[in-house]
């Protein structure tokens, strides 16, 4: 019997080899997520620069930058432009031609006809630049998109629309103090602490009158000034599983969809896929075989665990290649939709902080002329930057019943994008002469024509 216990001990000892081996093996698994966090340079997270330690506060601040006009001076400047914009054709063109993201290095070539833009936005960039260089271009895009429903909501606006009013007020009248100062403590920032909660909680929108399109509203949204299905007749959606859901459950008209589960900016050009109008083609082949007027790219969730710089290199390469093959098309980059806390629990890279950073970089690819950025998180993210848990079972993919909402949001967001063919050629030809100036001048007020007119028409 003693022998047996000795053998028991010996075999346990021998198995220590195994423990060490498995331990060494599992080290990768344990350390990988940590490495992921390490390669996030804190300085690169815009809202960290605000000096806020609290995540919620930081996100809120960041959101404020996104939704509110970038800075008080900007608001002051834009207000007049906006009001005059719609009626007078010249003002409108002003808005359209200013290039939002002109201050980023990549897009300096794109801005064109800077003169009108300068007058509109000359001073705006400076205050917020350090936070959101990449954002400026897109913030204005987004402003234009969001301002429409907000402003026009006056007809149906009900008691729940306090936040909206505030927002639109912030754009036109800089006198609202909390709104106009993005560096102010974020808690009061937009008054979203209370109104946002109201809206978020009432996502059933019982009274049907909650109209907010600001982040934090989680699904409430009344489309105004949208495009119709025909707008998408010459559109192509490129995307991952989330876009694939759109394809299957909320297909728009005659649009083409080049998407499948697991697609990334790294693989988008290599994969062979099929859809109603094409079969077994790579993206290159597809873009060579057919001319599109609008190309919407919805990628990024599968990449969010990878190194950001390499992701963005690939993303920029993809956009360049798409532009090269389809010079006449408007390329519309979609923000990566937020994930729920459940998803973040699986991996921090799905959290709002990382996605926000990624989205900022995506937004920076937009030039406001040929490449645009739209941020669906206005409808789907809650006030903390998460997808609400009841929108998704896995925390990442919407339930199919929410796809129509997504589609109607896209339809309203793209209404701001000029698709007339005139807008494009000058962009290509005249851009280079005025690089230096545009980079400083363009960002804030750049409203595109339709947006402006829509927004201002509805002003009370």
């Amino acid at each position, binding site marked *: 019997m003693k022998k047996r216990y000795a053998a*028991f001990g010996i075999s346990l000892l021998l198995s220590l080899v195994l423990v060490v081996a498995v331990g060494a093996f599992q080290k990768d698994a344990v350390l990988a997520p940590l490495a992921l966090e390490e390669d996030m340079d804190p300085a690169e997270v815009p809202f960290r620069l605000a000096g806020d330690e609290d995540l919620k506060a930081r996100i809120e601040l960041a959101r404020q930058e996104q939704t509110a006009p970038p800075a008080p001076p900007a608001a002051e400047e834009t207000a007049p432009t906006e009001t005059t914009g719609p009626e007078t054709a010249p003002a409108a063109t002003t808005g359209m031609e200013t290039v939002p993201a002109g201050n980023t290095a990549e897009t300096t070539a794109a801005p064109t006809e800077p003169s009108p833009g300068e007058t509109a936005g000359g001073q705006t960039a400076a205050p917020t630049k350090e936070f959101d260089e990449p954002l400026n271009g897109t913030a204005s895009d987004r402003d234009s998109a969001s301002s429409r429903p907000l402003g026009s909501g006056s007809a149906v606006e009900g008691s729940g629309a306090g936040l909206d009013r505030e927002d639109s007020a912030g754009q036109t009248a800089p006198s609202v103090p909390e709104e106009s100062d993005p560096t102010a403590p974020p808690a009061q920032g937009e008054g979203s602490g209370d109104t946002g909660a109201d809206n978020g909680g009432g996502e059933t929108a019982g009274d049907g009158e909650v109209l907010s399109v600001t982040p934090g509203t989680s699904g409430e949204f009344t489309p105004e000034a949208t495009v119709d299905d025909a707008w998408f007749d010459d559109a192509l959606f490129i995307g991952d599983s989330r876009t694939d859901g759109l394809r*299957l459950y909320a297909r728009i008209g005659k649009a083409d969809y080049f998407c499948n589960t697991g697609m990334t900016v790294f693989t988008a050009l290599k994969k062979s896929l099929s859809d109603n109008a094409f079969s077994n083609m790579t993206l290159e082949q597809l873009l060579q075989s057919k001319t599109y007027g609008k190309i919407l790219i919805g990628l990024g969730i599968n990449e969010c665990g990878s190194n950001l710089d390499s992701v963005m290199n690939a993303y920029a390469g993809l956009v360049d290649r798409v532009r090269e093959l389809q010079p006449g098309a408007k390329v519309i980059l979609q923000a990566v939709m937020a994930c729920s806390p459940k998803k973040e629990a699986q991996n921090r890279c799905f959290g709002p902080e990382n996605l926000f950073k990624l989205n900022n970089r995506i937004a920076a690819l937009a030039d406001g002329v040929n490449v645009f950025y739209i941020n669906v998180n206005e409808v789907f993210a809650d006030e903390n930057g998460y997808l609400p848990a009841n929108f998704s079972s896995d925390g990442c993919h919407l339930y199919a019943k929410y796809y129509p909402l997504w589609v109607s949001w896209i339809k309203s967001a793209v209404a701001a994008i000029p698709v007339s063919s005139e807008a494009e050629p000058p962009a290509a030809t005249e851009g280079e002469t005025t690089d230096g100036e545009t980079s400083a001048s363009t960002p804030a007020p750049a409203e595109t024509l339709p947006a402006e007119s829509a927004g201002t028409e509805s002003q009370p």
Partner: protein
Amino acid sequence: MQFNSIQFIFYFLPVFLAVYYILPANFGTTVLAAGSFLFYGFAVGWDPLALGVLFAAFFTAFFGGMAAESEKRRWVFWPAVFCLGMSLVFFKLFLWGILLPVGMSFYVFQLIAYLADVYRGKIRAERDVIDFFAEAFLFPKLLSGPIASSRDLQKYARRPHRKLFTFHMGLQEFILGLGLKVVLANRLGGVWAQGSTVGFEQVSTPYAWLAAVTFSMRLYFDFYGYSLMAVGLGHMVGWNLPMNFLEPYSAKTVSDFYRRWHATLGRWFRDYIYIPLGGSRRGTARTLLNLAVVWALTGFWHGVGGGYMMWAGILFALIAAERLFLKKPLERSRVVCHIYLVLAIVLSWVPFAAGSAGEAVTVFSRLFAVGGVGMTADFLDCLPKYAWLLAGGVLFATPLPRKLWGKLQKTALADVFLFFLFWACLYLVATARQDPFIYFDF
């Protein structure tokens, strides 16, 4: 630690087998006990609660078993069984989903079976602590069965069948099981998973059927594959463990299906619940009551959710109907019975898969096109992707592959095939591992 994980296949198993076969045969069972302990430790991440529960159950059964042979055995047996049973109830009912230690459902049943066999005098109580540990917690059957007969376990603990022939057969079975699990089951699960991701209320009716059918296949090949791996591992160490799956989809009735599906659990309920309650010998009403008890417990054993209860309820209703009037016409038929069986089984898995009764109702409403068939784009998109897997699933649900395997098993061709199958599986496992989304499932 799953059998289809890289850690198990490349680290645990080779080291364990080396130690097992290098040490003299006398120490075989000892090495098995040590290996099983380590295996469980890895599987639960050395969670003190899980290990504590394991040892508590172990010593309850060990000393309870010896005492159950004594004069006053009644006073030991029932409390011991009560403790074991209540530990399971406690974990399932009050802490379910969070804390139930891996494999507890299985080893508790194994230990209760052992105590009952000792109590009835069918076997002698095990007096060797290490042997008993190996019998109770043998790592191939520790996490998900099969629940083996105590008599067999005692036999193999004393004299394992350590022969090259057995080892070879075990290796073959292990790889086949791995193939079923990795190639078929893991991927067939995608349809149902996608359905719950997009929300079942939106899927089209054909898609819902595809999801229900593929889920049934997934469950079968997952558990069948696992059980085959367990039996194979048993053979590799010279123990003969019982087969859990005996071509269940060849059955003609639901009652027969559940004699062939997870057979060792069914046998456990028959031997330790149904027959002690009187079985079918006390009239129709009593028989139905006994069946109801057995199925309620079976549902509970699988989980506390409303879905499991609904699943068990449907099966009880079908089995009762068969016992009362359906059995004879079904057994006489040649085609109708198979259609009936597949339909009944596929539909009965729906609440099982849905988890909650509410979700099950949603899926049923889509299956039967309540509110219209819906947009079939999802189905048309999905079907081509799963066509091969579906065909494979149908083929492997028939007895044909097993017959073919019976002829090929001893030829060199079989080993060549298995060699490639093995590396293909590892490729699938390894690539799945790098996928950031499945990554954290490991």
